[in-house]
Structure formats: structure tokens, C-alpha cells
């Protein structure tokens, strides 16, 4: 499923990497706040759900080649994170939902 469709259907706010949203294909999802876990276990093309807002998340997403990052629960995203995500072309999205709630909705959309 295209990231743009997910953004649209789940009303995610696009905070950075907007020009990448239309093209990215989401192959699955991964939810975790331990960056070392995400580095080791998330798969290329996954959409990553986390409450972390530190610039390190952009480095992890770019390392694993994730489809994008959703910062959940309206957690604070540092300005440097937004800037870095734009530079690196990593879609950075935001939602007030918890990771649990958003994962459930993604599952319902068929992202498994």
C-alpha cells in the first residue's frame, strides 16, 4: 500500500519528507521505542511507530530504509529531527493516537 493512502485514511500529519510520501510503498509495520531493536529487527519498507522524537530516529530510518516514521501520542518532535528528515527524504508523520491504536488501524487497512 502506498504511504500517501495511509496518510490520507488515518489523517496523519506530514511533518517532513512530504515529497517522498506519494511514492513510498509500505510493506509492513514495526512499533518499538528502542532504536537498537528497530535497527536490528525492522524490515526495509516498514512504517515505524514510535514516541521518540530525537534526530537519531531519522538515522535509523535511513539505515534500515524504512518507508517512514510515525511519531505517535503527539510526542514532541525536535526541530533538528524535522530538518534532518527533510534533508534525508525520510517521511516523518505525526498522530495523536497511541502506537497501539495506530497499529490496530494499520492492521485494519491491510498493513500486516
Amino acid at each position: 500500500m502506498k504511504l500517501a493512502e495511509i496518510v490520507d485514511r488515518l489523517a496523519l500529519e506530514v511533518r517532513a519528507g512530504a515529497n517522498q510520501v506519494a511514492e513510498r510503498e509500505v510493506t509492513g509495520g514495526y512499533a518499538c521505542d528502542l532504536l537498537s531493536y528497530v535497527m536490528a529487527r525492522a524490515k526495509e519498507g516498514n512504517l515505524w511507530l514510535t514516541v521518540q522524537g530525537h534526530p537519531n530516529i531519522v538515522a535509523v530510518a535511513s539505515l534500515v530504509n524504512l518507508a517512514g516514521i510515525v511519531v505517535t501520542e503527539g510526542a514532541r518532535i525536535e526541530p533538528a529531527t524535522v530538518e534532518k528528515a527533510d534533508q534525508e527524504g525520510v517521511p516523518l508523520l505525526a498522530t495523536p493516537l497511541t502506537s497501539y491504536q495506530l497499529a490496530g488501524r494499520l492492521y485494519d487497512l491491510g498493513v500486516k
Partner: protein
Amino acid sequence: MRELSLHILDALQNSLEAGATVVELVVDEDLPADRLTITVRDNGRGMDAATLARATDPFFTTRQTRRVGLGIPLFKAAAEHCNGDFAITSEPGKGTTLTATFQHSHLDRAPLGDMAGTLLSFILGATCDVHYVHRRATGAGETGEDNGPEVQEFEFDTREIKAELGDVSLSHPAVREWLQKLLAEGEAGLSAVG
């Protein structure tokens, strides 16, 4: 990381890659002050000011195989997330010192983890010597008495061990087994205190 020992192992490996011949690792648990301080000091080639300034940037790495380096950035984020600090000082040709502090009781502070296992695997795989000190200060003494916090310490130095072993290698099966026991008992002796 689920355990701080993984960050420590990563820092030790950085020192090794910097050509250090001696690495000093100090784990200082100061319970009265509620601080945990981890210091890794090496005598490797060090970094110039420009490299040092970028050492905590995840989009900086000296590695040629990929362009992202997260070892130091993750260690720094872990410390800062636990009400702590992270600092690196370095001098080209002299060495590098990394210091990470944590609020000891912080809920999100990962446990130290398997220090004995981490040290053993590093010591057996590394070409450099390791001086390790694990210090733990517990509650201050009874009020009115002239005694400060009780301090327990486990210290270990591969140079001393090698001097005693002479020609026998650290990786000799019998030595390895003895080292494993020494490290495990040294660490366990400390945990019994707190």
C-alpha cells in the same frame, strides 16, 4: 539498548579501532548522589576538534561501508534521556575519554546488564589491555557517626594478569574459565551490597 553493557562494549570497540593499547573503564555507582557514571578512557590516536564535534552526529561515520553511525549517538541519547550527561574529550595522538552519566534511579535507565560477560568477550577478542574499576557507594553511615558512604570496589587489570601468566595466553581454556569465574564473582560481590 536494553542493557548499558552493550553501549559500553561499543565504546570499548571504538577505543580498540582507534589503536589504543590500554583502555580504562570505570563504572561508578554513587547511590547517595543517585548517579551512575561510566567512563571509557583510551590512549588511542584521538580526534581533532572537527571530528570530535561530529562524533555525536548520527550522520557522521568514519566507516566506508555505510554512511550512518549510531553507536555514540545512541549512548548519548540514553544518558540524556535519564537525566544525565554525555561528554567526549579527545586530543590527537593522546587519546579519547568518554563520560556518560545517568540518574541511577531513573525509570528508563537500562540495567548495566552482563558486565562480566561483556568484559570477558572484549578481553579475549581485543589486542589492548583493559583496566576495569566497578565502584559502588551505598547509603551514608549512621548520622552522628564519622563515617561516609560505604564504598565497595571490584578492580581488574589485564596487565597484572598477563604479568602473572607469563607465556600463557589469556585465551587458554583453563585461563579463560578462571577469568570468567573471577569476573562473575567480582561483579556478583558488588550486587550483594546494594
